[in-house]
């Protein structure tokens, strides 16, 4: 089995973010449609559509998740966050109809992560969003697990291309379990192998050498 000594920090679970996780940092960079509820003086240059000096109240714009989370307050209304398209009623119906046909990589790729983060903002639709996320995951999990446990020695790119980041991580760990088991069955588990990191470095070095 492939033993790796570099283990990146795992992303947080549910509504929590892991402060130093690269995945969570990229997730919180996803943009959300928002509406400002007060004016932001001297920041007009952030909003490309006008030349005004300030961002006036009631402007619709897109802000990254981390900024919306930082500015959002329940008591004082600084901004209101609108739901991204994929979490709205229309798309929820699609997900509920058959979660297997949707391309979550295109929708997300942090569909579950961003959806859980949306629960930070008080929206009347929160219970339905949570329910849809859960049902989507359940509906897709069976096929995902099946393919990760049975695709041995074949090209998996077609299987993973429509998966969300979370699902992709599950798929990879399923694959590494499968490969480990297969190599044990063949009596290869005790064979010493070169570190995959070293091998990858060598590949790159070859490519870097000019012809």
């Amino acid at each position: 089995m492939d033993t790796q000594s570099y283990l990146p920090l795992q992303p947080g679970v549910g509504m929590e973010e892991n402060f130093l996780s690269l995945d969570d940092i990229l997730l919180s960079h996803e943009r959300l449609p928002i509406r400002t509820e007060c004016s932001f003086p001297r920041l007009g240059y952030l909003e490309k559509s006008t030349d005004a000096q300030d961002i006036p109240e009631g402007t619709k714009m897109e802000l990254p998740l981390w900024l919306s989370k930082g500015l959002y307050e329940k008591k004082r209304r600084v901004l209101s966050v609108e739901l991204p398209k994929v979490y709205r009623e229309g798309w929820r119906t699609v997900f509920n109809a058959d979660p297997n046909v949707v391309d979550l990589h295109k929708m997300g790729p942090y569909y579950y992560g961003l959806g859980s983060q949306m629960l930070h903002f008080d929206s009347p639709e929160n219970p339905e969003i949570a329910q849809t996320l859960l049902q989507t995951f359940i509906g897709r999990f069976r096929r995902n697990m099946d393919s990760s446990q049975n695709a041995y020695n074949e090209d998996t790119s077609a299987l993973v291309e429509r998966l969300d980041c979370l699902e992709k991580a599950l798929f990879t760990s399923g694959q590494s379990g499968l490969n480990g088991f297969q190599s044990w069955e063949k009596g290869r588990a005790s064979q010493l192998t070169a570190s995959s990191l070293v091998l990858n470095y060598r590949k790159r070095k070859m490519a870097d050498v000019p012809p």
Partner: protein
Amino acid sequence: MFCEKVIELIRELHRMSDGQLPAFNEDGLRQVLQEMEALYEQNQTDVNEAKSEGRADLIPSIKLRHCCLLRNQRCVTAYCYDRLLRIRSLRWEYGSVLPANVRFHMCAEEVQWFSQYKKSLASFMRSLGGGEGLDLTQDMKPPKSLYIEVRCLKDHGEFEIDDGTVILLKKNSQHFLPRWKCEQLIRQGVLEHVVS
């Protein structure tokens, strides 16, 4: 928008998810620090104005910039921390001496950190096993025999084993060697473990 520069740094690391160490992006980091400085100064002037002239309407903008500062701080910390994780794993994969092309990608502070880590690890391993020391990087997989059959994948030159015999590791030659002697060479891809 603010904090776009720092995301580039994070993406750079994220792209190499197998643990390779990309070159230390000093230039990118400097640009981020400059952005933070500018944000801080703008905030300072706005805070002073809000205090002296009682302009409470500036507060949302101050808060926004403050969020950006915190965000930049988070990302830069994550960047450095993830690199340290990678550098730490290099010690286990390559052994205590790194090849030049890897070392080339580290900044001065990281080189220093690596040598400190090496020292702590070595003194820890010396303290184990009742004062005799124990090499923890050995036998990552449980050994089945003391000697193993290995094949050379490239010319490595002369190699001395415990009893003083010197053997020549020539490409495609096959040897029967003590396992603990060649484990690291196998990990570095010089030798290949032959299982019959």
